[in-house]
């Protein structure tokens, strides 16, 4: 009798354990199915969810994007305030990496390394990654920077206290303190333009179509096919920022 009871309870336990194990397994496995580029999608797929693509293979380093951005968005002219800028990477045959971005690329670039020493060279435009899990939004102590419902990281300049914690938190160096307004300033993805049906200033002036603005919810859209047809990467993926700026032909040297 007692023996039988033990057996029964053991059987029950095994059943329960199996059920729990199964739950656990699906619980662990399921979220991974949803992770695309380490970002999850917002709840409403009918609304736009802005993302951005940059094709390094197409960029010729003319710096028109950085220039147009300053003119469109009232960014100070001085060479240490940028919402977007272009970097020239030169990887030499000896393995060393040379990076430069004189005035953000607005005045163009010169390649001073002789041809014989160059292993490869390319331009990398940089801007806010409009991260879905933004470290800057996380860090803002007062809620003066936020992820808008359509996935753009914006600043409330009438509410920012200017503590600069978000500048420290951004891994990509995309924020600066506006010297006249004394609040933080950053790329808004030309929110005033894209919400009126226009494209961003940088996309407008890019002569080689290296920059793509797009809606990540639009499966017919340009950005979607760009990501589908190229091997895209984000910057610093190990930081798990949920970056929505996708680069084609991104080299490992780029940081």
């Amino acid at each position: 009798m007692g023996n039988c009871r033990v057996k029964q309870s053991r059987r029950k336990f095994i059943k329960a354990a199996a059920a729990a194990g199964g739950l656990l397994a699906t619980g662990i496995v399921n979220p991974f199915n949803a992770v695309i580029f380490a970002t999850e999608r917002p709840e409403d797929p009918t609304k736009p969810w802005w993302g951005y693509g940059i094709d390094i293979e197409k960029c010729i380093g003319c710096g028109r994007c950085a220039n147009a951005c300053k003119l469109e968005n009232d960014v100070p002219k001085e060479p240490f305030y940028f919402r977007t800028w272009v970097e020239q990477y030169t990887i030499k045959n000896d393995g060393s990496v040379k990076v430069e971005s004189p005035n953000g690329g607005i005045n163009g670039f010169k390649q001073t390394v002789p041809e014989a020493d160059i292993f490869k060279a390319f331009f990398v435009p940089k801007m806010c990654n409009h991260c879905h899990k933004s470290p800057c939004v996380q860090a803002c102590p007062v809620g003066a920077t936020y992820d808008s419902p359509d996935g753009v990281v914006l600043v409330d300049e009438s509410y920012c206290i200017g503590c600069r914690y978000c500048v420290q938190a951004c891994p990509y160096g995309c924020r600066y303190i506006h010297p006249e307004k004394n609040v933080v300033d950053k790329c808004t993805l030309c929110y005033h333009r894209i919400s009126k049906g226009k494209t961003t200033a940088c996309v407008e002036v890019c002569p080689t179509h290296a920059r793509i603005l797009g809606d990540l919810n639009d499966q017919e859209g340009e950005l979607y096919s760009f990501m589908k047809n190229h091997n895209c990467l984000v910057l610093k993926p190990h930081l798990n920022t949920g970056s929505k700026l996708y680069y084609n032909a991104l080299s490992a040297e780029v940081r």
Partner: protein
Amino acid sequence: MEQHYQYLYEMLSQVQGFIYPNELDLQWGLLIVLYPYITGLVAGAFILASLERVFNVKVLKPTYELALLTALAFLLVATMPLVSHLGHPLRAYEILSTPHSTSAMAIFGFVYLWYLMVVLLLEIWFDYRRDMVIWARQEKGFKARIYKILTLGVNDISPKTVKWDDKIGYFITVVGIPSAFLLHGYVGFIFGSIKANPWWSTVMMPVIFLFSAMVSGIALVLFIYMAVSYIRKQKIDMKALDTIAKYLFYILILDFTLEGLDQIHRIYEAEESFEILSLLVHGPLFLTFFIFQIFLGTIIPLIVLGILQFYKPREFTRRVIYLVSSLLVLLGIFFMRWNVVIGGQLFSKSFYGFTDYKIRIAGSEGLLWSMAWIIIPFIILAFLLWLLPPWKKVPAEPA
């Protein structure tokens, strides 16, 4: 602003390698070095005071009130460098009205208020209430009126009520110890939680900040106790002094071990950021890191205080040694804060280069204002010692 541009153009010529263009303007300067330094002094001084009260280290009695008042004097100033550094100081209230729950910085206002209102002010009030009632009767005029206001009208000094003072005061001290840990461990978390910055982002940061806080706070009380005794021409209680120095020595060992562990861990793991951090400590930070923080601020005091644990020279020599050691430790911890705050911003997050930082003399971020923020707490302390002199406390009648 023109001046700022001029400064930045000057810095532009100092850049080594490549930095993101926005990184040239170093965001947190001398004022933010002072912030963890001052809060650290507060937390450390308070923990020394609670040693006497909670852990019953009776030899420390002569420094108990002194340590508390020191903590208060520095705590009152602790927010000033922060607020004056803001781009919009008048919006500072937002951190209390709409604190962002995910931000490590947002709860600072609450941690600060808790520590000031619930811990320090209350503990001092309970400790001094009976004396203030007595002083209010003895003194005349203005000072008597201040004491009357400070007692908040609780004038009962019957043994039963005084016993309550002691009981609740003890309870607050017990609450205060975790609060002091919270205050400074939390300041470490502000830096340690920034994953973008490999020099800051370590789980050790709150612990290191806490122990360095205790080291600096104990050294400060050691120094202030000697200075106050000298000014008052009173004989120093050498037993108390020896005990404080002993604690300083022990906690300095712990602090040094923890920081060493952190660095060894970095060196051994040698992650992506290792090369740039290695260049950082051997280049721009060499003087402040190896010479000021480690050699002068840690190794020398460790050796000297260590020797004193085995060999006791005569009193005067010991006093000189304690004075020099405490000042060296205070200097070393200042540069520890410097190396964290400034050092963390000197290298580019691209790991390809360095920007530069030069202290400016004038301006709200300048050297003069920063020195003021260090001197003002001493003036407040002098006032507090005049108002609430620990040496004039009336001993309680034996129960």
